């Protein structure tokens, strides 16, 4: 992802959804009002500072210390302007709040520090959101732990993900391309790495994608490698010995690990499976217990594949 947020104008990202146009026109209204008033205020400040520079200690100054007319005018005109801006902002907001009834629904779950997406047919993905182009999509958001926020700059959508309740956003993507989903509500050490790829696909490609994501006839090691990347294991585990959030998985199979409670364990098939499904159970000493559970997200075949793959990482 070299340049995942593409620019549409100097100020704003490219418009990737139907919402973006509306929000950008509201932005433009605020922008030109601001530019106008800034020129007025800064211009007058600088002009007066030059024009009325003190020339002698005995300068006389204006005795005028109020003018009701002027004050009423300069209160009412800005008032009218900001009230119109309020309505512009409100209309876009109402539009963004109510999803069309026929929208395609995807569940999204945020947790420290990844996004999981579940499609109506049961397909789940981690840190990869694929959506069809030209069709309203409603994302139903929930959190497994704390507050996060679902933010796709190119689509101009943002919504907090709140534990204990559901929130949602909707959008209709307009271009078949890739962009990025970011977490915008501070959530701790991995906050700024909590990202997902957003893939907008042509409707027919989207159907193919859904199918293709459900099964795979790859050999186990390769499927495992694919899953390792797709399920974002690499966010926390390196394969080259570097320490990130979790222990490096370089040559992990057969290694002896010391656990938080001091016990020793040799990494085998069962330990890997346990780590995937019940990660809080046997935490390696010196690491925070932050790994999410993949229970329900990985099929047995996929666990086998991951184990097969880890055996190959020397």
């Amino acid at each position, binding site marked *: 992802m070299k340049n995942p947020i593409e620019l549409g104008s100097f100020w704003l990202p490219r418009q990737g959804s139907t919402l973006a146009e509306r929000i950008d026109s509201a932005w433009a209204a605020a922008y030109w009002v601001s530019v106008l008033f*800034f020129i007025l205020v800064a211009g007058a400040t600088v002009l007066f500072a030059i024009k009325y520079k003190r020339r002698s200690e005995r300068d*006389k*100054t204006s005795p005028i210390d109020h003018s009701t007319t002027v004050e009423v005018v300069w209160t009412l005109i800005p008032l009218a302007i900001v*009230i119109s801006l309020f309505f512009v902002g409100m209309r876009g907001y109402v*539009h963004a709040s109510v999803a069309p009834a026929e929208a395609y629904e995807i569940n999204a779950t945020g947790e420290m520090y990844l996004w999981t997406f579940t499609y109506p047919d049961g397909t789940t993905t981690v840190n990869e959101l694929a959506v069809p182009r030209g069709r309203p999509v409603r994302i139903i958001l929930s959190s497994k732990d*704390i507050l996060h926020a679902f933010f796709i700059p190119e689509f101009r959508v*943002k919504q907090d993900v709140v534990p204990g309740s559901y929130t949602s956003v909707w959008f209709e993507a307009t271009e078949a391309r890739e962009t990025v989903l970011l977490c915008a509500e501070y959530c701790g050490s991995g*906050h700024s790495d909590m990202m997902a790829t957003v893939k907008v696909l042509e409707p027919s490609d989207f159907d193919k994608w859904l199918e293709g994501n459900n099964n795979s006839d790859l050999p186990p090691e390769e499927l495992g490698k694919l899953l390792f990347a797709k399920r974002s294991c690499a966010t926390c585990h390196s394969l080259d010995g570097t320490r990130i959030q979790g222990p490096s998985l370089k040559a992990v199979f057969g290694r002896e690990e010391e656990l938080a409670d001091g016990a020793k364990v040799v990494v085998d098939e069962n330990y890997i499976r346990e780590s995937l499904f019940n990660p809080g159970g046997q935490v390696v000493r010196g690491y925070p217990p932050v790994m999410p559970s993949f229970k329900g997200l990985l099929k047995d075949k996929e666990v086998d594949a991951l184990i097969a793959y880890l055996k190959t990482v020397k």
Partner: protein
Amino acid sequence: MSQTVTTLDVNTAPDGGHGTDYIRAQSGIMSWLTTVDHKRIGLMYLISTFIAFAMGGVFALILRLELLTPKQTIMSANTYNQMFTLHGAVMTFLFIIPSIPGALGNFLLPIMIGAKDVAFPKLNLLSLYLYWIGALFTLSSLITGGIDTGWTFYVPYSSTVTTTSVLSVTFGVFILGFSSVLTGLNFIVTMHKLRAPGMGWYKMPLMLWAIYATSIVQILATPVLGITLLLLIAERAFHIGIFDPALGGDPVLYQHFFWFYSHPAVYIMILPGMGIINELISVHARRRIFGYKAIAFSSVAIALVGFLVWGHHMFTSGQSEFAAIMFSFLTFLVAIPSGVKVFNWIATLWRGSISYSAPMLYALSFLILFSIGGLTGIFLGMLSVDLHLHDTYFVVAHFHYVMVGGTVIAYIGGLHHWWPKITGKMYSERLATISCALVFIGFNVTFFSQFIMGSRGMPRRYYNYLDQFQPLHAFSTVGSWILGLGFLVMIICFIKSLRSGAPAPANPWGGLSLEWTTASPPITENFVRTPIVTKGAYDFNTENA
């Protein structure tokens, strides 16, 4: 002929049996720690809050240095998170909220109304001690493992997840709240009870109206923060389940409580700054202030209506759409009085006699920077636009333009303005001008670039960021060095003034409010004889007079 009081000459006599100036009146460290003189207390506030500002500033420079490159530059993610939390908490609770009321408010308020001291001098000293104790608790986290929640302490991260020392910091802020409430209370009573003969409410300098409005907010809003923090402490320590959804609580409720205080708190930060600007502009342009009553009432209006807009921090939190719409509307209404003040200040410049002294240069900077801060608030108040901008660097830039470009610039301008009165020494205009220019340039380089980053989608509180933002981040970091240099020059300028500045006359700028009628520095009792006010604070000599 145009003087405010009749006792001018007597009051400028530094001695003559009427006592020495407040600094030399007594000596020894105990004489300071047990003093009830509002000027000494103000001076101790000045020094304490300045230390806080310097600390917060160093944190800021380190943060910016880390952000020079997208991945790790000088520290780990956890350290970074603790650093921005402390930066925010120190700047907010230890510097900007207490500084102007505590330092300039304490020093000037009694003198400006012609009183000997505040209404409750011992309570005033207690406020200072509470400030120190609160500061110690807050800063103790530095050695007990930091705190990484952000200065907003949002739950459930703060209550259930983080292992850092949330308790000591929130308890510290709780204590600081008491300090703030007591100061506000003291000021309100002082203004009601101790004004000198002849000083009607409409004769008061506008700085005092602003402090009055600030005090109202301090008294009404701060207790809510106190209760919220106690609930958070209870939640964290005993899992009572008010905020934690796992126990049936509601994390959004915390945000309502928090912002019910912290939005008004934004006015505790900006109103005193606005108050200072009135004095700077009218005195250094020798011009009657334009629209005295509009300015006075708008301060009070901002303070009161400011209680109704907290929800604009929560447009994307999942509060009801109806609530969001109401909050947006009220936000625009409360913006109007601030705009009106700006117009009044500019009208005061019109046909004035503008000196390019440091206080005026700061006031002019304020007008420009605060306008940018205010205008960008329009974007954030517009519901649909805020969906895109919320929690991005656009917000970071916006509040730094208001808090630093507004309040801090006004405060520094005010410090130069009253420096001769407080210390009895003049400062070097040349150094002050250089530092003002560096601050203005450095500030804009640092923070204007952040508007661009934010609108392009750079979220705030990010330790790592997408490569594409590096040029703007690097630009901003270089700006922070210029800004830091500007503040350094300012400090050098003040230290030089203390060591070798020329003695200050009683009234170096030709101001008309009461503080300029007493000696520089004032005697312990402020005035030799109680002043009698016959003219307003802004009745400058005019062409028809």
